């Protein structure tokens, strides 16, 4: 059932220790900062986090990592100029890393939402990221077997939700939101605006409400426009 939370704290209250949590965003675009802050505050630990990166600077996911709440990162690009908290934990052997080519990350998340048991892809074939994985030659091309990434919870950011939980996004902040919403058992969305049912054009809805469990409004000014 869809529920509209009054605060980000209320929205994330059900996230328990050991959960696999998908976090939307690519860089800062689409990153649900306020939900991540609330997750930090709520104390859940031993998390497996799925995000394209592994935190930047001293905010959001980087702080979750700094505080030792993240047992494992599944991501494509952990190393950035300002990923010092991840770097430190990784070098100290205190965080596990599953490195996934970005397209495989996206496709594996999509596969989870679409009920696909696994798929073959040429990406990664013949590289160290395919070591230990099943491979086969299909139509003359080497391919690697990849499996879906499911999650207990997704934290994502959208522009607007209507009363049915239908979502629209803004520009490249869309990125992982739609596929994570479908891949998680429980999807929590922060939006800048909630509009009445009927307030979004059915032709333009990107994430149908069936994929959304909790919506919380967060004033746009606090996170939109942040640039790394």
């Amino acid at each position: 059932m869809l529920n509209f939370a009054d605060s980000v704290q209320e929205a994330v209250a059900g996230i328990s220790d050991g959960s696999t949590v998908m976090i939307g965003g690519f860089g800062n675009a689409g990153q649900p900062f306020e939900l991540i802050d609330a997750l930090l505050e709520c104390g859940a630990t031993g998390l497996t986090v799925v995000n394209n990166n592994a935190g930047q600077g001293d905010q959001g996911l980087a702080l979750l990592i700094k505080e030792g709440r993240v047992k494992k990162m599944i991501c494509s690009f952990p190393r950035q100029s300002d990923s010092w908290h991840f770097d430190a934990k990784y070098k100290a052997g205190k965080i596990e890393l599953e490195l996934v080519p970005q397209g495989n990350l996206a496709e594996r998340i999509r596969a989870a939402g679409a009920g696909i048991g696994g798929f073959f892809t040429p990406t990664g074939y013949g590289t160290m990221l395919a070591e230990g994985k099943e491979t086969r030659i299909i139509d003359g091309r080497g391919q690697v077997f990849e499996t879906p990434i499911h999650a207990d919870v997704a934290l994502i950011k959208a522009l607007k939700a209507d009363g049915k939980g239908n979502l629209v996004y803004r520009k490249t902040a869309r990125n992982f939101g739609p596929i994570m919403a479908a891949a998680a058992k429980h999807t929590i969305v922060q939006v800048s605006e909630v509009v009445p049912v009927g307030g979004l054009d059915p032709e333009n809805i990107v994430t149908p409400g069936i994929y959304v469990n909790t919506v919380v409004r967060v004033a746009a000014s606090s996170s939109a426009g942040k640039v790394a």
Partner: protein
Amino acid sequence: MTTATTSIQTSATPLGRDDLARLVAKDIAPGSFVNLGIGQPTLVSNYLTEDQDITLHTENGMLGMGPEATGDDIDGDLINAGKIPVTELPGASYFHHADSFAVMRGGHLDICVLGAFQVSATGDLANWHTGAPGAIPAVGGAMDLATGAKDVFVMMTLLTREGASKIVETCTYPLTGVGCVTRVYTDKAVFLTGPEGVTVRETFGCTLEELQKLVPVPLNLAA
């Protein structure tokens, strides 16, 4: 052979980064859909002309990307794969990450331009990881681009700082993709790579013979 060597020389001196970017831009067919990798390849966008009508893809969910944003045009929700604020051209479109990578992985991009540590004689690419002990690996979309685009162009200096050729018999760095590179643009020459080995298309400030002394794989001459 000496005559031919001279005939393919198009510049008396090695090319600088901008000249190289200009050359790559000129080689992109009109109407192409192109993804420019982070770093040196991004320079190519400075030399694409309006007549070419090139559509740029950025893997974080957009076709029709415009130039880097400045001043009031900077919008945190509109960035490229390098996380730099960019602009939107008329006719642009946005889509989610799986749809965006399907553009690459499905073979729909005409060209991607990437940097490289090494390219092998048969077009293997190494550009994501030094493999050094303790280095934190980060791959991003490199493997998808290398594997998915119809043509993979590499832009790099021919030699490392230590003077070693980055065109090699077999890559010693961890691979990004196997047999994927079709063309290598360097400061000293343009090479075509593929199952038949390396062919030189043109040289900059050196003869084929001089080039062959630098590169440890047999160089063929373009017909």
